[in-house]
């Protein structure tokens, strides 16, 4: 139950690219071939380990339909990571990436880590978007890239974990302000913040001074 950090993720992308399936595969380790349309936003969570530390991932899976776009925008600001998903068998979902990215950049905090995901890599025969194209897009926009299959679970773990690694590194580098929960990062209960240790040590100092 105890965790060192808590990261908030959102999953975005066109409707039908497999966002909910990715989440289900990650949290429940199963695949549901027939899935209802997501209404608004659904929540999922899982614990992972990075660098020997327990990290809790809270993931909000958003509806891809245009009509929900204004609702899902509310989730950008508070997220530390975003999985931007397209479907490798549908070029239009790849073409819409720019719009998604603009939306995300506009409404999120500037440090949000974005992972670009080409999903449905198991459907190689129906592929419409080359892996190289995805790589190029990611390079151009400074994203991490991966091709996954929610059906076979290929790279699903990696996609979520690598995003967390990137966030974790940014924390180590001091890029994220971890005391501001609006960034989508929270320090776990057993992990004292630098501030509190500082103040308590100061308190001890003062008490000592008073004694003398």
């Amino acid at each position, binding site marked *: *139950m105890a965790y060192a950090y808590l990261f908030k993720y959102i999953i975005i992308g066109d409707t039908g690219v497999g966002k909910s399936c990715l989440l289900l595969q990650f949290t429940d380790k199963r695949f549901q071939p027939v899935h209802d349309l997501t209404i608004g936003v659904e929540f*999922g*969570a899982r614990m992972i380990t990075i660098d020997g530390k327990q990290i809790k991932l809270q993931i*909000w899976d958003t509806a891809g339909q245009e009509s929900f776009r*204004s609702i899902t925008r509310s989730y950008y600001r508070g997220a530390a990571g975003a999985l931007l998903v397209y479907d490798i068998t549908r070029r239009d979902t790849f073409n819409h990436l720019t719009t998604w990215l603009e939306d995300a950049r506009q409404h999120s905090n500037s440090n949000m880590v974005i992972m670009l995901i080409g999903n449905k890599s198991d459907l190689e025969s129906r592929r419409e978007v080359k892996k190289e194209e995805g790589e190029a897009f990611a390079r151009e926009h400074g994203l991490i890239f991966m091709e996954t299959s929610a059906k076979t679970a290929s790279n699903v773990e990696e996609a979520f974990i690598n995003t967390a690694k990137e966030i974790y590194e940014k924390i180590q580098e001091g890029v994220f302000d971890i005391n501001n929960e609006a960034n989508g990062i929270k320090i776990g209960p057993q992990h004292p913040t630098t501030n509190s240790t500082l103040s308590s040590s100061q308190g001890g100092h003062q008490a000592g001074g008073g004694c003398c």
Partner: protein
Amino acid sequence: MNFLRGVMGGQAAGPQPTGAETIQKLCDRVASSTLLEDRRDAVRALKSLSKKYRMEVGTQAMDHLVTILQTDRSDSEILGYSLDTLYNIICNDEEEEQDESEDENTQKQTDDLCALFTEKFLQDPERITLLLTLLEEFDFHVRWPAVKLLTALLKSQGAQVQGIILVSPMGVSRLMDLLADSREVIRNDGLLLLQQLTRGNAAIQKIVAFENAFERLLDIITEEGSSDGGIVVEDCLLLLLNLLKNNSSNQNFFKEGSYIQRMKPWFEVGDDNSGWSAQKVTNLHLMLQLVRVMVSPVNSPGATASCQKCMFQCGLLQQLCTILMATGVPADILTETINTVSEVIRGSQINQDYFASVNAPSSPPRPAIVVLLMSMVNERQPFVLRCAVLYCFQCFLYKNQKGQGEIVATLLPSTIDANSISAGQLLCGGLFSADSLSNWCAAVALAHALQDNLTQKEQLLRVQLATSLGKPPVSLLQQCTNILSQGDKIVRRGSKVQTRVGLLMLLCTWISNCPIAVTHFLHNQDNVPFLTAQISENLGEDERLVQGLCALLLGICIYHNDNSLENYTKEKLKQLIEKRIGKENFVEKLGFITKHELYSRAALKPQPVFPSPEQMLFDHEFTKLVKDLEGVITKAVHKSTEEDKKEEEVKKTLEQHDNIVTRYKELIREQDAQIQELKEQVAALSSQHEQMQATVAQQLSQIQQHKDQYNILKLKLGKESPSQGDGSQQNGLQTEELSQLREELDELRKQHAVLQTQLAERDALITTLQSSSQTTESPAGGSDNTELLQELEALRSQVQSQSSEISHLKTERQELLTRAEAEPSDTAPPSASAELESRLAAQTSETEKMKRSVAELEQQLAASTSTAAILQTEKEKLQSEVQESKKEQDDLLMLLADQDQKIHSLKKRLKDLGETVEDEDDLDTKDQTSDDDDEEEDEDDK
């Protein structure tokens, strides 16, 4: 009306400036004045008039006030007045306070005004967005009225305002920020705003939760002192309820965020529970409701199960059970705690087991279940509490075979403990008490101990009751039917129908799906006549339900009948119905159950909630049973004997089909296994294939490397003076082979030497033998020997020639080697230097030269390859020669053996002739020693 009166009155008043006129003037000033101070004064005046002349200010000034909000953004004072005024004309609250004494008509008018002005305000949705931006103003006089105004708008036109806020960027997030405001008034009014905002809108609820609402609200509750806190805690709890009720996504988030654990301290109430404030009772009530929302039976089973598990693990359930057993807890809190515990344990084995182990702190300690049941069958306890206990008991037994067994066991003769009160005793007491409510509750509770549990249905048949002294004991089943049939004669409190309905539900649950119980029931000769009489009688409205239940009971007797009683087989019962009641009539009576007005209400949810004790008639689980049985009983009654037979046949064929299907299933399973095996094989093969491909690739790359090396060498050759890189490489390859050959030759030579020395010895031996036997030897033997000698000589010469050949080859090879070694070393670069010198010379000539040199090189290459080929053939020849010489050696050895034989025979002959010949053994030893000597010599040579 008010509007009309106001307008009319205004016109009629004439000389004195009416409110409407003043307001019109003020509005003009607000609209046209260029000085900020003037506008501010006008708005302030409007504000002060807005309560008294709500109608007028609302109709005339609203647009002007909104314009102020847009244009005078820099002056927080005027913004504040404007917002206050708008709030006054839209909000109802203060009017309500004033108008408390007035009649309903006025109240309705103010409601109308509120709706009217809200609609007017919302004509332009941008105004909500404007209010949201005003919330960003930190100034208290702007933010506070903005919060209040938005709350009032949400209260009046919730859905519309929610829709606008939802789509305005960061709208919800901004409102969430209010909870972080350091000014308590704003934070608290922010709570009220969020309550209105989240009402019935799942999308907004989720965003609010996403914005860390749970964390903040739980923090505020803790800061404010949990249940001891004031109305702020209540507001927080109401908001939490809004966020969680019927919102599975938020419930999941709440659980995953480990917030259930944070609810546990709420229920740590002390020992002294007297004098709870009304606020504390309200707060605890809401807290209990929050727990129930998380484990509600209407949630998905998986979600409820995981929350139940969590509540046990974090000690929340234990804490609730402490309240359950504590003294001095107010009755309604106790009731709600019982309901909460019920839902926390419902269907969860661990929690049910824990609950069974809870003891009341009395001496001697009694199980909590017993203490609770005592309240259930105690008519002095409040009705809601008794309902709650029944619910708790039902939830304890829900999907709990172990618990069911334990309850039934307390009634069985073998396990009865006379010294203490048991659950079974209490239930029986309730069943036969004079209070109809106790009858009903006990019957339903007992029915739940039998639900879906054939073993307990059969076990309960064993229960015997001691009635009055001197009479034989009666079975529990018998006693139930006795009370049912004699019901009218016993004086009771409450309704007679309630008792009979309870008993009939118990009997139906008991004998359904249990043919032995049906047989027991039919065995009593009075039962069937009683039922048919009840059904066929034309009774009043309130008896209809009893009739329906009797029909259901009789129907079960037909449907679950195993025909073991001759008088009451399926067939005979059906005939009885047809004769005495009539099929149609029977089905109609059966239908009375589901047509009852209280039936569908009970079918909705498991908790027994009844507005009044009289309405306590149906149990939730029983409605499920009715649903299952109504159709099949109707069919069973309508079916003729022939149809029955047909059905039997169909059943048989179905069984056959089943057999076929099972066979196929097995086949499929086998094939599955085969497929699995084959798949594994395929996997193994494909991995092998991959390995092979990998080695092939490796080899290909090696070949490529060699080719590259070759090309590099070729290039080198092109640049530098002719060298035979590849030639040397080939030579290098051959040197290996040659060294091998050399070794072989060395060995052969050694063998030759050994053989030669042996031959020499033999020669010597033969000559001595010859000389010694010159006189006596027959000529034939002499010729033989000479022949042999000749042969030996020939062999020796052959061997010599071979060794010379070998040495010849050796020298040749040596030559080759030296050549190969020498060639790469003499690489003077004349062409490179020439290139440097002739840099100015025409490029054409250079290229030509290059071409020529390339051609030359190619020739050289061809030559070297041909020499290599020659060497190869030579090597082959040598090998074949070696092979030959080996063969010859073998022949030689054969010859030697022959010779030995001959020498033997000669010696024998000599002996026979009387010549003294050295003994064989001596000879042999001599041979050996000489051999050894030879070997030693050989070693010395080396």
